[in-house]
């Protein structure tokens, strides 16, 4: 353990000015401006926070904070409008893509994205999602897949893995009785209206960097009026998987990622995005 001693504020100011490297010139990473300083209500270690920050970083980097409208879902991310310093709308359960369609058609020069979980997008909102994608609306859909219903207490979702234990499948998901896990991103990727479709994760620094690139691509294709972009983010749910955050990320790496394989599912032709 290093030797430490308490110091008073004046002393601290002097050291900060003279010797410490903690000055603005050396700052290389900070919370994006589009993210408000409200403490998030998510459980410790939840991937929603990282996904929020990546969206905010992309909005900051593109300089479109005053031109972006987000649509929040029902689910754990229902309070997303408290955390983004942009115009946000709340949608009924599963209908975020329909609300985003309306906003984009009325205000076509704005950047519109919907932020939906797997219970919202892949269960109750499957119809809206598939038809929005099939119409090729010029929006970005961000799909957070953690394989479980988080907010309501860990029930089985369509995306729960085979054999996964949840409160409504306490002996593991039995495919004879409960069906198979739904890979909705693969379903959507084959629709002609979809321009860009990717699956990313936020469990490690390298995956976070790739996720940010995918979200950036989605906003950029929207700027170029190319059609619908769909980005699935595979995240953890430490509380309902009943693990510590570090264990849940390891479990995600070992069990979720082999089934939900990361990568671009639909890549348009080579274009210069910068």
């Amino acid at each position: 353990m290093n030797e430490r001693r308490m110091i008073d504020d004046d002393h601290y100011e002097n050291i900060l000015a003279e010797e410490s490297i903690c000055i603005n010139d050396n700052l290389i990473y900070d919370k994006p401006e589009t993210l408000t300083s409200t403490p998030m209500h998510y459980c410790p270690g939840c991937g929603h926070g990282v996904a929020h920050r990546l969206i905010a970083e992309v909005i900051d980097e593109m300089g479109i904070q005053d031109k972006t409208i987000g649509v929040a879902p029902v689910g754990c991310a229902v309070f997303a409008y408290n955390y983004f310093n942009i115009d946000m709308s709340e949608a009924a359960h599963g209908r975020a893509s329909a609300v985003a369609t309306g906003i984009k058609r009325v205000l076509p020069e704005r950047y519109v994205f919907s932020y939906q979980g797997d219970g919202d997008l892949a269960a109750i909102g499957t119809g809206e999602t598939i038809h929005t994608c099939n119409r090729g609306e010029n929006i970005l859909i961000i799909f957070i897949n953690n394989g479980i219903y988080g907010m309501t207490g860990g029930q089985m979702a369509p995306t729960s893995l085979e054999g996964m234990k949840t409160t409504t499948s306490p002996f593991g998901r039995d495919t004879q009785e409960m069906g198979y896990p739904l890979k909705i991103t693969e379903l959507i990727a084959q629709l002609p209206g979809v321009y860009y479709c990717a699956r990313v994760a936020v469990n490690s620094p390298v995956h976070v960097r790739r996720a940010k690139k995918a979200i950036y691509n989605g906003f950029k294709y929207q700027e170029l009026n190319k059609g619908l972009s769909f980005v699935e983010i595979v995240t953890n749910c430490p509380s309902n998987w009943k693990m510590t955050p570090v264990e849940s990320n390891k479990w995600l790496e070992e069990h979720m990622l082999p089934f939900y394989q990361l990568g671009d599912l639909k890549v348009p032709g080579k274009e210069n995005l910068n």
Partner: protein
Amino acid sequence: MAKVKGDIVIDIEKCKGCELCASACPQQSLELTRKLNSKGYHYIVKIEDNCTGCTNCALVCPDSVIKVYRRTVKKNEQVATITNVTGDITVNLNS
């Protein structure tokens, strides 16, 4: 050869102690403290003065509580490191 010197500032009041940053740190310089913040969570502190400013901890942090600083340090230059500036202020001098 010039050496890279990094440092982080942690907003301990917003930290929920998930330890994802500690597991992502290649230098193992982060650890949970026994103290509690006002929300009742143990929070993360920097325990080693070997930060390289790689930003891995800030990238995986779900609550965006980590600020990262980095500077290239010339040979034979002494740099003090300040940790925990939002809470109790401690400083490592000549450690």
